[in-house]
């Protein structure tokens, strides 16, 4: 099964790419990653979860949104609508490739975009755009750098404005997971550490195993 465990690189949308893990004939999950620095911090955990789900015959698709990850576009030229359109395009590509409408797993800021992917969504520790912007601004303040270019991320004024008002949509078939340490509303809580907060990328194998169980039982028809 080694072939199934190596991700494939798949084009989608307007010159963007996503990684695809696992078989194309089972349930298909579109995974919306956290935004900004949190994406880097969670990358190892998410890749591990994708490999484990692929081993359970669940296909996982991991797009890099325009201006993030391996995208060739510059973040400062990206608008909020570009991200929403990319999510829609990724879902359409998965549907075309697999004949299966994907369900969506959205992590942290990814939940701000998930309503454009489809009705069935699982969220892990969803957050607001305001909170993400506070993080970026504070890191700039704390490091004495220019608040217009927080932590090396240059956002267009339009993206900043859209993000400041962005909240996770409440429309659809949504299941929300949070960590036990987070007492905000959730359908289920799992033990684990907020890896998206760690300055250095970290893993939490026990949390990853719990997540894989949660995701697979939710995604299976």
């Amino acid at each position, binding site marked *: 099964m080694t072939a199934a465990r190596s991700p494939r690189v798949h084009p989608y949308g307007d010159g963007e790419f996503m990684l695809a893990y696992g078989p194309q004939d089972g349930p298909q999950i579109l995974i919306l990653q956290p935004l900004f*620095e949190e994406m880097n911090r969670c990358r190892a955990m998410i890749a591990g979860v994708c490999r484990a789900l692929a081993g359970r015959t669940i296909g996982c698709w991991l797009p890099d949104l325009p201006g993030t990850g391996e995208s060739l576009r510059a973040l400062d030229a990206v608008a909020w609508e570009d991200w929403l359109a990319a999510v829609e395009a990724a879902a359409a590509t998965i549907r075309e490739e697999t004949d299966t409408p994907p369900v969506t797993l959205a992590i942290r800021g990814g939940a701000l975009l998930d309503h454009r992917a489809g009705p069935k969504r699982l969220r892990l520790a969803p957050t607001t755009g305001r*909170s993400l912007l*506070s*993080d*970026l*601004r*504070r*890191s*700039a*303040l*704390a*490091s*004495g*750098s220019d608040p217009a270019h927080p*932590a090396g991320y240059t956002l267009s004024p339009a993206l900043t404005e859209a993000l400041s008002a962005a909240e996770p949509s409440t429309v659809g078939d949504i299941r929300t997971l949070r960590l036990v*340490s*987070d*007492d*905000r509303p959730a359908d289920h809580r799992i033990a684990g*550490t*907020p890896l*998206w*907060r*760690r*300055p*250095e990328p*970290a893993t939490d194998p026990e949390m990853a195993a719990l997540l894989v169980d949660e995701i697979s039982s939710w995604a299976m028809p």
Partner: protein
Amino acid sequence: MTIEDQLRAILRDVLGLDAKRAAALDADTFLFGAMPELDSMAVAGLLTEIEDRLHILIEDDEVGGEMVETFGGLVAFVKGKRGE
């Protein structure tokens, strides 16, 4: 859980401290500038995690200085915010 213990748990989660280091945090423990894990990005995450878990709002002009210099300073800041 006391505010002190909640803040120890948050620092442990955010910085990846082991249980022993987290338990050893006391009022005189130096944080920002002394703990290698606590860089400026981590301070930002720490403050947001404190907002989320302890239900306070932290303004930009309150960030920095004494509040993140020592563990005691952080505890005093949070208690002040919560009116305790």
